[in-house]
């Protein structure tokens, strides 16, 4: 069981109910008439068996459901968000089935029994599900994962979760209500910081396996597809253009693996290939990359030599003069090399694209500050830095001055002037300061010690001794007492109680000011939660304390806090009553 059902809205006709097996958390239709459901039915497939019962399968906007024949209530219903994946029976099997696997691990099988169109029915259902599932999947998965992660990473939170949700003080939804949103924000922040890169070998992972009958099988996962799309935008574009209206997904990838585009060592022969264009686009991309040249002039091989020999001079006639006398093999070898360079560059680029975009943004902001220079003048300075780096011998120099970190100021005026004060009168003017300094100086100058009225040295030293740790006046501190008197596990329990109470109180106080009906409802609920907490958690603890004869009132503060909350609630309620009457 997992607390992941926050997206659910319980509307008329839908109830939460235990299934026959008694597992918690499955939704089962229990309404009286289907007509009451306002949901759109996308597909109805008749003659579908489930648990050896004939019935009909309904695919709706948010859930898939099944109703036994002759009855008008669903006995099986799954939200799309709860479905992890669907599986189908292999083509050759006599039973044509569709299996839904839920996140909880349960499975539900549907057996399509229509004699004439079982296969068609199944495929229709499958295709529709295929389109629908991803939409819901992502959201549900993310949320679940996120919550799971938070619980795992934060033991305190996990304890709290156990204290409050498992013991049913508050519901899971209430528990997560303001946590997820808050956390998903900062998580997305860390997300944007670092994205997982692409393995350069992702195409190696789809190495074909022979399936034993003269065919090849490629294993393609969504990760690989994602990698292909990110690395080769041209393929993604093709995919968008052709799938699903021209080709099915399967056909698309089959063609992809058949194309010379994938097998780059094959030289392109015809242009009817779907991916011929991709190859061309890639070549253009490579060309433009090359055409852009390199930023670092130290690695620019084209301008490395100062004065190259003119054509016709020199001992070697240079690389093979013309391309037409190259053999086919040489050409294909060259193609492989080109491909590797391009592939690596593209893989590298997927990781850098974001950075670049950010850098560009930064560049823009800095240029608005007027700090940017004309690119023509800027370029030599990059070169100069590289040159300086190249001639540096760090170990020959005395390490007297480490290079200080340069202060990168976006707005230099803000740095030199500081933020403008909101309320000027709170600040002393410089005249005031000078005056007061003068005043103090004056007083110090005029200060004359009254030596007759000081303490004698012996009295002073006893006073200091008494106030030092261990002194007479320092004894009886409760801090020590608690540490020593209360056993560790009780301390721990107390800590948990504090945390739980704090959480509940936080919820409670966050309802104020109560200005919406929702908050009203919530504050009432929170008060009952608090009471429940006091009865189920706090009171047993107190009793335990008493049994152990711990005299100190450890829970006094907790009670006090609860009492304050009750008072507040009471005050609010009486006020509301008054207003109502």
């Amino acid at each position: 069981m997992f607390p992941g059902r926050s997206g659910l809205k319980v509307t008329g006709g839908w109830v939460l109910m235990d299934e026959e097996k008694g597992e918690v958390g499955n939704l089962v239709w229990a309404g009286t008439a289907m007509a009451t459901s306002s949901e759109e039915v996308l597909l109805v497939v008749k003659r579908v068996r489930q648990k050896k019962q004939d019935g009909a399968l309904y695919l709706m906007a948010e859930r898939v459901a099944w109703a036994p024949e002759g009855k008008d209530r669903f006995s099986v219903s799954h939200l799309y968000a709860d479905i992890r994946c669907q599986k189908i029976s292999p083509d050759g099997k006599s039973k044509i089935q569709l299996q839904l696997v839920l996140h909880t691990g349960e499975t539900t099988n549907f057996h399509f029994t229509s004699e004439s169109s079982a296969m068609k029915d199944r495929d229709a259902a499958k295709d529709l599900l295929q389109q629908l599932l991803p939409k819901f999947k992502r959201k549900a998965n993310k949320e679940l994962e996120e919550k799971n992660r938070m619980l795992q990473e934060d033991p305190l939170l996990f304890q709290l979760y156990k204290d409050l949700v498992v013991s049913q003080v508050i519901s899971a939804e209430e528990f997560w209500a303001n946590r997820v949103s808050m956390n998903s924000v900062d998580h997305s922040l860390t997300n944007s910081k670092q994205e997982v890169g692409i393995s350069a070998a992702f195409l190696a992972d789809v190495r074909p396996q022979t399936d034993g009958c003269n065919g090849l099988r490629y294993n393609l996962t969504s990760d690989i597809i994602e990698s292909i799309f990110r690395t080769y935008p041209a393929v993604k574009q093709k995919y968008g253009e052709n799938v699903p209206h021209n080709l099915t997904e399967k056909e698309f990838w089959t063609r992809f693996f058949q194309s010379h585009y994938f097998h780059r060592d094959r030289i392109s022969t015809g242009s009817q290939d779907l991916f011929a264009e991709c190859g061309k686009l890639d070549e253009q991309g490579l060309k433009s990359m090359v055409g852009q040249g390199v930023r670092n002039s130290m690695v620019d091989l084209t301008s490395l030599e100062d004065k190259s020999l003119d054509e016709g001079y020199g001992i070697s006639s240079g690389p093979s003069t013309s391309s037409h006398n190259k053999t086919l093999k040489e050409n294909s070898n060259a193609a492989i090399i080109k491909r590797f360079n391009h592939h690596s560059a593209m893989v590298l680029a997927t990781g850098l694209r974001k950075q670049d975009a950010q850098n560009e943004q930064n560049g823009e902001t800095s240029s608005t500050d007027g700090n940017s220079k004309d690119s023509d003048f800027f370029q030599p300075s990059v070169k100069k830095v590289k040159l300086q780096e190249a001639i540096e011998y760090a170990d020959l120099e005395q390490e007297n001055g480490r290079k200080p970190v340069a202060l990168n100021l976006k707005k230099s005026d803000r740095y030199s002037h500081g933020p403008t004060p909101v309320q000027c009168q709170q600040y002393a003017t410089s005249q005031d300061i000078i005056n007061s300094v003068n005043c103090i100086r004056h007083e110090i100058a005029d200060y004359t010690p009254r030596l007759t009225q000081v303490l004698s040295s012996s009295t002073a030293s006893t006073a200091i001794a008494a106030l030092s740790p261990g002194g007479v006046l320092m004894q009886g501190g409760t801090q020590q007492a608690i540490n020593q008197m209360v056993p560790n596990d009780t301390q721990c329990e107390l800590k948990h109680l504090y945390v739980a109470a704090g959480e509940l109180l936080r919820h409670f106080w966050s309802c104020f000011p109560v200005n919406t009906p929702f908050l009203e409802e919530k504050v009432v609920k929170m008060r009952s939660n608090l009471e429940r907490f006091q009865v189920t958690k706090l009171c047993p603890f107190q009793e335990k304390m008493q049994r152990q004869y711990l005299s100190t009132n450890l829970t006094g503060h907790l009670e006090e806090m609860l009492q304050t909350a009750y008072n507040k609630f009471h005050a609010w309620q009486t006020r509301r009553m008054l207003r109502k009457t």
Partner: protein
Amino acid sequence: CRLNIDGLLVYFPYDYIYPEQYSYMLELKRTLDAKGHGALEMPSGTGKTVSLLSLIVAYQRAFPLEVTKLIYCSRTVPEIEKVVEELRRLIDFYEKETGERSSFLALALSSRKNLCVHPEVSSLRFGKEVDGKCHSLTASYIRAQRHSDSSVQTCRFYEEFDALGRQVPLPAGIYNLDDLKSFGRRRGWCPYYLARYSILHANVVVYSYHYLLDPKIADLVSKELAKKSVVVFDEAHNIDNVCIDSMSVNITRRTLDRTQSNIETLQNTIQRIKDTDASRLQEEYRRLVEGLKEANVARETDVYLSNPVLPDEILQEAVPGSIRSAEHFVGFLKRLLEYLKSRLRVQHVVQESPPQFLKDAFEKVCIDRKPLRFCAERLRSLLRTLEIADIADFSAVTLISNFATLVSTYSKGFTIIIEPFEDRTPSIANPILHFSCMDSSIAIKPVFERFQTVIITSGTLSPLDIYPKILDFRPVTMASFTMTLARACLCPLIVGRGNDQVAISSKFETREDIAVIRNYGNLLLEMSSVVPDGIVAFFTSYQYMENIVASWYEQGILENIQRNKLIFIETQDAAETSMALEKYQEACENGRGAILLSVARGKVSEGIDFVHHFGRAVIMFGVPYVYTQSRLLKARLEYLRDQFQIRENDFLTFDAMRHAAQCVGRVIRGKTDYGLMIFADKRYARADKRGKLPRWIQEHITDSSLNLTIDETVQLSKHFLRDMAQPFKEDQLGLSLLTLDQLQSEEMLKKIAQIAHQI
């Protein structure tokens, strides 16, 4: 700090110094004192450049009459810029210490493409286009035309520079390429011509090898540099190839076709001028009678088409009568072209020496040696006379005429090979005439002769003794320095076999062996799961890499590697590789980790450093021998054997090992850096190979790591990487890092004396 290097006060712009830097400066000082040449090998990342600059600048200040100029040559534009920045640091330090503004002028010079500020011209992408466009705006006759016709476009930056720029020398300071540009923009002067003019009186010039070694360019840029200069060739491990490249010419059918159309254009232009302005041609004729000497005193902007090394005596002579008139010359070119066409119509490979070629040419089409020698110069004059604006179009005919001059000037050290087809594709006719220089000393000879001190230095210059041989010079100092280390931050491992005990090697017989390829793949796969951040792997050739990558792909090895790291691969397209390289660095930077598959002798292996996390391991798959079946190589090997007594195998191994060392050396760029160097070929274990690695790498190869299996390699790597990943404790001091006091102790000086290994 201030150092005392053998009696010379040297300002060193750091608080501490590496012992090897001190040792290096001592050797350098000795070389300068002797006014001789030197070859010095110093590990990468030990501050070679700053040591060079500190000492030579100090020397210049102490003996301003002995050393007037430092010419610092490096290979790539970033390297050039790095050197200037280090120099700036040094001069800043001088100013701080002495408290006075220095009157030091140092500048970088680069091609127009890197210096042009003309809004239209500088927006062009290729160096050739920039040069051509610049020429069309600044050529002397164009500027002359503008006097009469104001609609002719010229470059205002050049005009401003020409009017004012030479009167006042460039103010003292350090000018990097960007500094020159911004200075040029401020003044409205052309930075390129300003720089070219200013190198004459600058204290330090930093530019690329070509400005000294390529006769086509050296002749115009570096001709007037003072004799009392110190020339430094940094990253000089490949200097012989640069020399050879600058003197070699290849002619294909396409070249000849384009020459044909060039000649037609010339002919038409001549005809037109003859009809309208015959006096112009007569004027040229008169000039040519008087000799090329005068023709050579052309305006600096016209010398875009300079000739290959012209012996001085030619300049004294008059152009032979047979090619003096424009029409005759074009006719001569036509004959030459037809002859070359006939030579390209071959069915089998032809190899001959320049004298044989000349003899054949004389017999077949009666082309004499003498007019051939003047060919380049004559064409230059003609193009100027005809006022041809878009000179880049005439590159084909220029190439042919340069070839003509070269082939008739040098009878030794060159070979001509005509191949009817490429070896790999014998069915496709693609004839090429290679005119190939085999003697790297020819191009560098003027440099050694002219300048009093030439320093050849690099991180990998082993075996040192071979360089003086192939470059034909006599060094006064030759030394290899080791790297003092507080912790062994490099870990060379030689992997000789796979876990299945199959020997792994890229040698020809087994390179297609599936077991070897699989073992190579397993090695990379295993390493990719052990090594953090970046791994660089080098293959012996591009083709080999393509094949291996293809079979790794088929075997699914690459996919498994991709689970650990992204894969980037060098291609033959420089722009594409740059992109891959940048993405590779990005992936190392953001923690994803990446592998760069690259090629020895490629651009990456020559010019890109993989500091720190950009390269935690480098794997050298195989021994990077050159393609030994090439006829050019065979000819060169023969020549080396006959002329310099260098055995073929020695040279091939030397060449392979210097490239291997270059590749693996890419990962260690300093003492705080660390990296694995994995040599994946059992042949590396042999003494003749291992012995040719730089000493600073050799020292760390233990006997137990000579023939490891992949598993053992992984274990050792894991251990090494874990060790190195610990925070670098500050115990370098006194060991691999010295304070001034420590440097002066007797004991330390003794230790330092052992760092340099004289050869």
